[in-house]
């Protein structure tokens, strides 16, 4: 289907469609928020769905990542994530930069150890 389109047209078209469907969710969100009672059950449910969606996305990024991360061991990613949590809540009194660096550094180190280990 797309072979018929010149890339000079197809790429801007794809970008425009991408921007449009993305803003549609945001714009619709503003429209709907004016009609939903912030103290009502529908609003409480929407907030639950927002938090669940975000947690689902983040867990998927760690457990089942795409791209380069997919080549690392799942156990290494989980250990690195656990270290970042421990670092943030117990070791550094919620120092964000230090904790994300510890998590990322741990993954790099664990992945490297697998290449030199037995």
């Amino acid at each position: 289907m797309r072979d018929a389109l010149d890339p000079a047209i197809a790429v801007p078209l794809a970008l425009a469609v991408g921007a449009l469907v993305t803003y549609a969710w945001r714009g619709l969100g503003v429209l709907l928020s004016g009609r939903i009672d912030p103290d009502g059950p529908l609003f409480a449910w929407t907030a639950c769905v927002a938090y669940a969606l975000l947690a689902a996305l983040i867990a998927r990024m760690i457990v089942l990542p795409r791209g380069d991360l997919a080549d690392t061991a799942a156990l290494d990613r989980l250990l690195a994530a656990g270290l970042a949590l421990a670092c943030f809540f117990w070791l550094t009194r919620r120092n964000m930069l230090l904790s994300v660096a510890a998590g990322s550094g741990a993954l790099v180190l664990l992945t490297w150890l697998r290449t030199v280990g037995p």
Partner: protein
Amino acid sequence: MPGAFDLPHSEQGFGGPRAAALAGLRAAFGAPGLVMGASFVGFGALVRQSDLALWHGLASTITGWALPGQIALVELYAAGASLLSIALAVALSNARLLPMTVTLMPVLRSPRWARWTYFVAAHYVAVTGWAAAMRVCPAIPAEQRLPYFTGFTVTLWTATIAATALGFYLAGALPQQVSLGLVFLNPIYFMLVFAESAQQRTRALALALGAVAGPSVHLVSPDWGLLISGLGAGTLAYLLDRLWARRHA
């Protein structure tokens, strides 16, 4: 205790709308800017590796500014997918923006600002700015909230546009180990931000159930998994929360 986002110490919040915008700007530097910058360096590199031009990547970051959807768009385009399937995939990856915007708007609302400004601000709803505003804005006066959110997100947006260009030029130049560490910063950062926001029972339930459902349902349906697990886990969390509230009333 620093935490993910700094709260003002005063009853008057940051003092006024202008000061709130500057506080948002400052907050975006540091961890949010570095982590999101690193992620968009990765996106810029992906754009180049997909044989697209620099301006394509920049346009995507400027107009889309929601990374999972941007990655889906570039990957599917490079794979030769049809326009319709690209639109569907981007829409599905970004569906979270709807409940996020609905939840954020009442927090930002103030009679001080015109209604149309909220439609402009909505473009800047994305995970980091949303989490910052949900944490900081309830603690400051209403007229400072939109300025804080805008100061924070527009700064972050500008940084990610620059990072997209940087990544485009750095593509292939970074050692594998370094780029691995850079892409892992993003999920780790989000995990910590939301682990910290899980102090409230309803949120903790929704976050925990979503985290369990996300990867499991993704195995069954990679396309619809996110939406199904979000709706399912969110609904279950809502019902469990009401049940708990009734029992302990």
